[in-house]
């Protein structure tokens, strides 16, 4: 049982991050904090992809003359990293759009608190 926890500790941290992100989105009343929760949720998935690429006793995926190419177990898997470069860019773009919308909301209603905002909307 302990091995199950210790052997997968990277994934446990990812799960904790994911839960923090979902908590932020669902329960925080401030829209900026919701956005931060969203960012944490995205980062937890990025970290998941990065951790599935890791291998014990493996090196960076750059050709090393001492290690033949066909020994794949000695190189990290580069694909998830490249995928996550794209996903991080997507995340940054999402945050940019979110903050732009928040600016528009603040300029119109002068509040970013969800309850006050819903009151002013009615």
């Amino acid at each position: 049982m302990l091995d199950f926890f210790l052997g997968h500790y990277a994934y446990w941290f990812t799960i904790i991050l994911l839960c923090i992100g979902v908590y932020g989105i669902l329960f925080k009343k401030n829209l900026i904090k919701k956005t931060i929760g969203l960012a944490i949720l995205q980062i937890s998935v990025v970290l998941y992809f990065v951790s599935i690429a890791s291998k014990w006793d493996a090196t960076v995926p750059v050709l090393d003359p001492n290690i033949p190419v066909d020994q794949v177990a000695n190189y990290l898997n580069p694909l998830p990293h490249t995928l996550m470069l794209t996903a991080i860019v997507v995340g940054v773009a999402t945050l940019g759009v979110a903050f732009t919308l928040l600016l528009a909301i603040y300029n119109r209603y002068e509040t970013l608190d969800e309850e006050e905002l819903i009151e002013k909307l009615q």
Partner: protein
Amino acid sequence: MIESHLPAYIALTFVLFSVVIPAFGLWRSELSQPLAVLGSGIAAGFSVYGFINYLNEGSIRYFFGGWEPPVGIEFVYDGLSGFFVLVINVVAFFVMIHSHNLQKVEFPGKEMPYYSLAMLMMLGFNGMILTGDLFNLYVFLEIASLSGYALIAIGEKQAPYAAFRYLIIGTAGGTLYLLGVGFMYTITGTLNIIDMAAMLPMLFESNATFAALILMIVGVGVKAALFPMHGWLPDSYTYAASTSTALIAPIGTKVAAYILFRIILWMFGIEITDAIAPLSYIVGVLACIGILYGSIMAIAQTEMKRMLAYSSISQIGYIIMGLSLANPWGFAGALLHVLNHAIMKACLFMISGQLRLKEGHSDISRFDDSYRIKYPWTMASFSIAAISMIGLPPLAGFFSKWYLALGTIDNSNWLFLAVVLVSSLLNAVYFFRVLEKVYMMNPEKGQKEPAEATRNEASASMLWPTGILAVSLIVIGFANAIIVGILLNIFPM
């Protein structure tokens, strides 16, 4: 030679025009709308040509840069993707024509960024449909979503908050989809849909594929406004500019439904989907709740755009219910409903835009019988689309519900059959309410003369698109046997 590059051309047309519009728009911003019409028109032409080519020659797999999958990224132009691309691009073409007069009223001075964003969003939707790679699909999903949030935020005063709520739930959904893709990648080591479909039968009853499937369905279900994840939709559609709604409402949720079709029927296959739990049945029940909920909420609305938004939740339920039946009739009914609903909803939302332009509101409680004098053609188009929505023969809406009903009978699924029948009655309640206000005598006035009014019809650039879409509903209704014959050939099993 054009055929082999066709899938890339469709997407590249939108890339090209999303750049060309700002380039010309900085010089003359009134050129933006004609350029958007040109761009979506070229793409619609490619889609029509591509679908005819598919019928004659079969599907196309386009490998980018000549790299074959699973190493490279491919675009797959088969029956399903060809059909969806055809529907969304043709509808977008008509919406772009229709926006000519609305742009000066609804987003003055923002034409150039608006049409550039619309082209980017269409790129995202076409990419989502055509791509054969799960991660590529995520990237296109985010392209479409991000430009969609921006388009929704251009609208009334409340629009940015509606767009922000959509952004939070939509991005969370996209992230869950990405997590599901991660699970599938760790299990199979590939991201290509066709490659993965070949490997999945070896993973029958695997808990990890089951978890991945649930994550993907939830993530995409947010975009499709599947019942418990529909909360963003009514506000976004109501407060966005009429053109944005007319563009996003018929297309956005359909594309998400396409992903569900691709994942459940093509990639996993219905046996693996149902291996651990009857997932397709659960999705079908959620769709049924969505159908009833959407219809009942639509009856309670007095604002036309809001009523149509709730009606969208209900109609997307039909499509996903047809998917969950997973038999040929249900499948054909669902795809026919994709076509019908795209046309009906585009037509109805465009008419709500016309009324807002002319009357300054689209509040049903303030409609009266003078409308039939003032806008005879607008109201005629509205009637055809509304009656098709209710599902009276010989209009198109009847046949999609007919085939869906046949599908439920095929599966002996009486619950779903009852929902299809009851919801048609509910549809009748909220559409006849409008028709009654416009066409029946006003009893309070106590006279048979219609109210004093002069003809004040919308301009030709608005009447032609709505009119053509309305007439096409009749044509589809009569040609339904041919269309269903084509659709039945697409069915994978």
